[in-house]
C-alpha cells in the first residue's frame, strides 16, 4: 500500500527540488568577480545618474499599474490578430471591441480620478 504513494513522493521531491535548484543554482554558477562595475546599479545597460536612494513620485506607481493592464491587453490581442482571418464573420471583431472596451473603462476610471494630472 505504502509504495503506491511513491508517485506522490516523487512529485513532492521534484517540485521541492525545482524551487531549491532555482534558488541555489545562481549561487553556484554566477561569476564571482567583484569590482567596481558589479556593485553599480543596473539600469537597463545605462549608467545611472546620481544615487538610487531617491523618492519617486507616487504617480509612477499608478502609471505602472495602468501600463501593466495595457501591456497584458496587447499580449492578448496578438493571438486574436493572428487568428482573425481564419474565423469568418464579425463576431471576433465584436469580441475584440468588448475586450478593449472593458479595459478602456479602467482607463476612463483612472482618467476621471485624476491619475494623469501630475502635480
Amino acid at each position: 500500500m505504502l509504495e503506491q504513494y511513491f508517485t506522490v513522493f516523487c512529485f513532492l521531491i521534484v517540485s521541492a527540488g525545482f524551487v531549491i535548484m532555482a534558488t541555489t543554482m545562481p549561487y553556484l554558477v554566477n561569476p564571482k568577480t567583484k569590482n567596481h562595475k558589479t556593485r553599480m546599479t543596473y539600469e537597463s545597460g545605462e549608467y545611472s545618474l546620481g544615487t538610487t536612494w531617491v523618492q519617486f513620485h507616487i504617480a509612477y506607481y499608478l502609471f505602472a499599474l495602468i501600463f501593466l493592464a495595457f501591456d497584458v491587453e496587447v499580449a492578448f490581442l496578438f493571438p486574436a490578430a493572428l487568428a482573425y482571418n481564419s474565423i469568418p464573420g464579425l463576431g471576433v471583431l465584436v469580441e475584440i471591441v468588448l475586450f478593449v472596451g472593458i479595459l478602456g473603462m479602467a482607463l476612463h476610471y483612472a482618467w476621471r480620478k485624476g491619475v494623469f494630472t501630475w502635480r
Partner: protein
Amino acid sequence: MNHWFLLSPELLIAVSSFLFLYLSSHTKNGKRDFTLALLVSLGAVVLSVMTLDSEGSLFSGTYKINFFSQIFKLILSLGLFLLVWLSRNLSDLDERVGTEYFYFLFSATLGFLLLPSCSEFITLFVALELSSIALYILIPLRKGDGIDAEAGIKYLLMSAAATAVFLYGASLLYGMVKTTDLTVAATLLSQGGLSPLAYVALFLTSVAFFFKLAVVPFHFWAPDVYQSANNQVTALIATLSKVVAVAILLRFLPMGEGSAKLVFILTLLAIFSLLIGNLAAIWQQDAKRLLAYSSVAQAGYLLIGFVALSDEGYRAVFYYVSTYLFATIAVFHVITKLSQDGRNLKLNDFIGLSQRSPLLALTLLLSLFSLAGIPPLVGFAAKWFVFTAAVEQGHVLLVLFAFIMSVVSLYYYLTLIKKAYVDKSDQPLTALSLTWDEQLVSIGLILFLVLFGIFPGWILNLGDKVARAIG
C-alpha cells in the same frame, strides 16, 4: 434554447457591474446606486428562476448549465438581493467609494455565479480569481484605522497560497487524466478506485474551497477578516462565499466516493473544525469574531455531510448550506440595523434589544437558535439530515462528537440571546423603529426559518435533484 438566455443571470450581473464602474467615475449618488443595485439583483433572481430548468453546454463545453448550477445561481442571487438590501446604509464606507463598493460586490458575485457552472479547470480558476480579487479589495475598503489593511493583506496572502495549492492539485490531476474537463476527469479517475496520487491531488484541489469555508486548519483568516471588514462585506464572505465553496466541493469530493482515505481526511478536518470553532467562539467579545468562529464550527457540520459521501449526504449538505445562508443573513440583518454607524458590535451592545425592538430581537433569537440547531427551526432539520446521513454510513462516533460540540455551541449562542432578552442595561434604552421593508424582511426570514424547519420536504426534494445532477 438561446445561449444568451441561458447565460442571462450572469450577463445581467456582468453588465451591471460595468455600469457601476462607469458610474463610479462620475457623480456619486448613494440613493441611485442602491436602487439600481436592488433592481438588478431582483432581476438576477427572476432570471435565475426562469432558467432554473434549462440545460445546456456553452463555450465548447467548458460551461455547463444544468439544475445543479442553476439552483445554486438562484440561491446566490437571492443572497445577493438580501446583501444589497443590507447595504442601504453604508455608513462606515467612505462616501467616495460608495459606487465602487457595488462594483466590487457585483463582480465578486459574478465570479460566484460562474463557479458552479464551470466544468473545466481553467474556467474554474478564472472564475475563482474573479471572485477572490474583488474580495481582496472589498475587505480593506472600510474607513478607519490600519487594522482593515492588515486583514486585507492576511486574506490576500492566505487566499493566494490556497489558490497556489489548488493549482498544484489541478496540475497533478491534469497529469493523470490529460484533460482539463472535470466530468471526463471524474470518470477517468474513478475507474477502478482512486490511486494514491489521485487522493492527494483531489485533496489539494479542494484546499482552495476548504479555505473559503474556513475549515481548520485553513481558518486563520476568518476571525480577523470578519472583524475588520465592514458589516456588509462580512455578510458577503459569511454567506455567498460559503455557498459557492460547498457547490464546488459537491462536484469535487464525490470523485472520491467509496475511498476510506478521503473519508479519514474529511473526518479529521470536521473534528478539528468543530473543536476549534466551538471552543474559540466561547471567548469572543466581538459579535463578528464570534460569528467567524461559529462559521468555522458550521463548516465542521457541513463536512460531516461530506464524510458520508452518499446521495443522502449531498442532499443534507445542500439543505444545510441553503438554510445556513438565510440564517446568517438574518443575523447580519440584526447587526447592520443595530450598528447604525457601521462600527463593530460588542456582545454588550445587544443588551436590551428585546425592549428596543421586539421584532429584531425575535429575528436574532430564531436565527441564532437555528444556527445552534434547536427544533423546530431549519438549523435543527439541517443538522438532523447531516447526522443521519453520516450515521447511515457508520460514522457514529463522529456524529456523537458533533452532537456534544453542538451542545457546547449552545453556550455562546445563548449568551448573545441572554444579552438581548434578559440582561438589564444601566443606561436608558432608546427604541429602534423598523421601517416597513425592515419589518418585511424580518418577518420573511422568520417565516423561512420556522416553516422550512417544520416542513423541510421542499428544499430536501431540491437537494435530491441536486445530488442527482452532480457531475
